[in-house]
């Protein structure tokens, strides 16, 4: 099997608190994995370990067989990991087009000038923001900012795309658009890890699910099977006698 991303025994401690505890899993090319779990279970921390925002206390993470854990975020980005943020982060002083170009210049892809503009134009169209390239981004609606952030992440032509609650906060009709957008990406063969609370999205999109609770991986497998697992139900709803 050819694993795109391997997480082996990843651990992150904050002082005495163990936020991520010995988590291991592998992802194959073209898989879309849902990373789920109750609030505070360590999902975003794990994503931060993969993207290099945080350094793991111990454990290894490798991309296409090469060790990336412990490297600074910009080096990891250059090797092909792109991400979006839980609290959407657009660059307010730049136009929409420049926001997308930002993802294509310094990272996994190195384009500049006309080539970058063309790439940005095509990605804006893909996420549904065609003709919005010159818009100032500070005044965009929430879903448009999320679309823009996705376009910026895609501009790096990532080997693995990390989506941190990308669907959170969208209304039902926006959610439909968002889900179909991610489905398109998967159908193109992109490898994706999505941290998500929207269960409908997980059910309809993911091949596989990794469930975390209190920093530990408690389940890993096919979505419906995992969601029926008594331990997963307990993690979400608490013990029957609690």
């Amino acid at each position: 099997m050819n694993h795109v991303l391997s997480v082996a025994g990843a651990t992150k401690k904050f002082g005495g608190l163990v936020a991520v505890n010995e988590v291991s899993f592998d992802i194959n090319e073209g898989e879309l994995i849902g990373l789920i779990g109750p609030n505070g279970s360590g999902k975003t921390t794990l994503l931060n370990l993969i993207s290099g925002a945080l350094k793991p206390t111990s454990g290894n993470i490798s991309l296409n067989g090469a060790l990336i854990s412990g490297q600074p975020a910009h080096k990891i980005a250059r090797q092909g990991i792109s991400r979006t943020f839980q609290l959407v982060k657009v660059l307010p002083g730049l136009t929409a087009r420049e926001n997308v170009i930002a993802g294509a210049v310094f990272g996994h892809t190195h384009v500049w000038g006309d080539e970058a503009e063309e790439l940005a134009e095509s990605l804006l169209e893909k996420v549904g923001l065609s003709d919005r390239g010159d818009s100032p981004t500070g005044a965009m609606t929430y879903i448009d900012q999320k679309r823009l952030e996705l376009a910026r992440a895609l501009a790096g032509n990532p080997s693995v795309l990390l989506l941190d609650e990308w669907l959170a906060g969208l209304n039902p009709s926006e959610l439909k658009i968002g889900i179909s957008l991610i489905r398109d990406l998967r159908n193109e063969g992109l490898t994706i890890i999505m941290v998500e609370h929207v269960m409908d999205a997980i059910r309809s999109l993911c091949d596989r699910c990794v469930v975390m609770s209190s920093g530990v991986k408690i389940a890993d497998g096919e979505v419906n099977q995992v969601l029926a697992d008594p331990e997963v139900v307990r993690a979400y709803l608490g013990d029957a006698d609690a």
Partner: protein
Amino acid sequence: MSLPTTREWQIAVGGLIVLIGVALVPFFGSGYVLSLTVNIAMYTVLCTAWAMFSGPTHYISLATAAFFGIGTYAVGLGLETLPFPVLVLVAGACAAALAAVVGIATLRLSGVYFVIFTLGLAELVKQVVTWWQTNFTTSVGLYVFTDFREQHILWMLLGLAALVFITSWAISRSKLGFAMRIIGNDETVAKHVGIDTARAKVLLFVISGAFIGMVGAILAPRFAYVEPPSAFNTMISFQVVIMALLGGTNRIWGPLVGVIPFTILMDQMTAYFPNHTPIVIGLAFLAIVYVLPHGVTGLMADLGKLRKRFKLVAANAGEGA
């Protein structure tokens, strides 16, 4: 990279005409007018070089006096052995080296650490230079005897000004400039799109420091006798911050708008009310924070936007009617 736009050509030609015009000042004015012109030219280069780094990063550098003083000392020490133009380059290199050391130590950290460090940097270098001169050389000062007069200094400064504007413009169109804009907007995003933020900041600080060092070198002949307290004058650092921010750092020529009035004001103040200068500097800082947070050019841009919006509203109202 695309070619300069028509508007940029217009600005370049306009700038060149102004530069030539200023270069002719020595033939018409002398004494006070000439020395004021030299001051303005000096602060123009200093502020533009300062804004090159501090504008996009929002790190407030007070290292100007240290870089300037190093440049002055490089000339004082090397005048016997090397030709002046080489010394100017050496001065730039020395200031750049200092900038690299300071940058590597402090630019990974938050802005406050950087301000504090640069605040004392001139004092630190001054103490080390004074200590070294009193213990290892015969006198505390250095003589700088050259054939340069005010007009020569002015012409050299104008040449450097052209260079600093061109460099600023080239950086703003380069990948480095784009990276700085992203860093200024959101450093976390910058890291995650693959920018080595620490390296980019240090690089820009080094370029900016080199220019400031060269200004110090060019100004050295004006001192005739270089002493640590005059070469490492902390007030230069503060004045540069004020002038650059008063003008605004969102345009390459923005600092210039602050330089001209404030240089004249400070010149008058030191001549007639020397004891009141700290108060004026203090009030200028307060004015920047409370009245002109984006500088004069920022204010003009805001007004422009407001007018556009007003026109748009008026047009829409017209359509509706």
